[in-house]
């Protein structure tokens, strides 16, 4: 379970998170929507400790992420994250991209890591790209590789940060299909997204990020048909 309690976070004078609260249960899929520059990416990078926070607490399975004593390298094994920007390791083949962490972080043998990697790459439809370098992949393929790379660590949670935003429109579908597949398999996911149909069809709850807080969190039916906050209504009306 991920518990975010009253989290504040600033970059210098710019206060980005102003008391964020959110709990995500095992097996849940939560979509986060909101204007760009509102702090959605920042929230995700705080969850796995890439960014420090100013106050509040984030607990992952009861472990306080920002406590001095927390071994972040250990904690991060169970929190996968896929970024908006392409982030393949360009000097490694697709297979090596995916086996690196299982080998170096989990200490798996090459054979064992490759077995897992091939399984995950097959899962995201890249079984025929194992020995290709990422530079030769399309944007959609790179994002699917990044998903396989995160999954190869068998994370308990995966955070997706607008993984389709940098893609050409015709490539969005294949990546969203991969996300749906994972959601249906019961993966616990927090998805920052602009894809409203994805948020509606796949999520257990949808959260609206506005002015540094999660202004509204509700199941998709209620969120899209009867939003409580005026800001949510306005945001949704601008999107449609």
């Amino acid at each position, binding site marked *: 379970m991920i518990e975010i309690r009253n989290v504040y976070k600033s970059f210098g004078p710019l206060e980005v998170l102003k008391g964020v609260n959110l709990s995500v249960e095992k097996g849940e899929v939560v979509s986060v929507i909101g204007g760009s520059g509102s702090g959605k990416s920042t929230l995700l*990078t705080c969850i796995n400790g890439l960014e420090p926070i100013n106050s509040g607490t984030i607990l992952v399975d009861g472990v306080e992420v920002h406590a001095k004593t927390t071994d972040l390298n250990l904690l*991060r094994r169970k929190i996968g994250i896929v970024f908006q920007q392409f*982030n393949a*390791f*360009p000097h490694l083949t697709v297979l090596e991209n995916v086996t690196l962490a299982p080998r170096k*972080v989990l200490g798996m043998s090459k054979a064992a890591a490759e077995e897992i990697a091939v399984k995950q790459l097959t899962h995201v439809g890249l079984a025929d790209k194992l020995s290709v370098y990422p*530079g030769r992949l399309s944007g959609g393929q790179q994002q699917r590789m990044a998903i396989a790379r*995160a999954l190869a660590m068998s994370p308990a949670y995966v955070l997706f940060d607008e993984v389709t935003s940098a893609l050409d429109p015709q490539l969005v579908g294949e990546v969203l299909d991969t996300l749906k597949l994972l959601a249906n398999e019961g993966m616990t996911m927090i998805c920052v997204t602009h894809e409203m149909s994805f948020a509606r069809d796949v999520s257990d709850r949808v959260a609206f990020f506005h002015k540094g807080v999660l202004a509204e969190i509700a199941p998709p039916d209620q969120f899209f048909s009867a939003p409580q906050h005026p800001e949510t209504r306005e945001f949704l009306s601008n999107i449609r």
Partner: protein
Amino acid sequence: MFDTALTLSDLMFLIKGAGMTLAVTFFAVTGGTLLGLLFGVLRAQISVWAALPLIFVLDVFRSVPLLIQLVLANAFQAIAGLNMPPFATSCIVLALYTSAYCTEIVRGAIDAVPTVTRRAARSLGLSWGQDMRYIVFPMALRVALPSWIGLTLGVMKDSALVLWLGLIELLRSGQILVTRLQEPMFILMVVGAIYFLMSFPIARLGGQLEKRWREND
């Protein structure tokens, strides 16, 4: 076809000089690169303010003419009674000079690795050291190599200045022969050709590596 007083033993004299040039260059580049790696990683890691003393010292090494550095260092080591042979003094000064440039190359190459790539690596649970070793260094190496090759070739030529400390390297050997044989054109051509022969493999090695890496993109 060509009349010259240059004998085989004169040629051996030049080749011995070339050996000195290679030795000085080797120690300078090896030492300078190791220090440059250390300083470059430090520079990429700590804030500008914390790095200020280092930046200042390295800027001195980069801006004061190498000849002045060599002569002053030699004078200081004599005053301090260190009794260092000119070869050691030369290698140390050239290594520091090289490290000043190498630091910038390393820092620039590390900074060229996109933040999101490093974040992706750390998110997978890789430690700082593993990120450096498996992601940052290999990626940075591709960026740094052309500049590093250029630096190495530059140091090989700059190393001629150690003749001021009395070392008989390639250029000095050439001078000696010019004075004795009075055939400046021919001898300088031979010396130039030897410099070229020493540089060429290094430049080619860099070209080969770059080509191999480019094929992956």
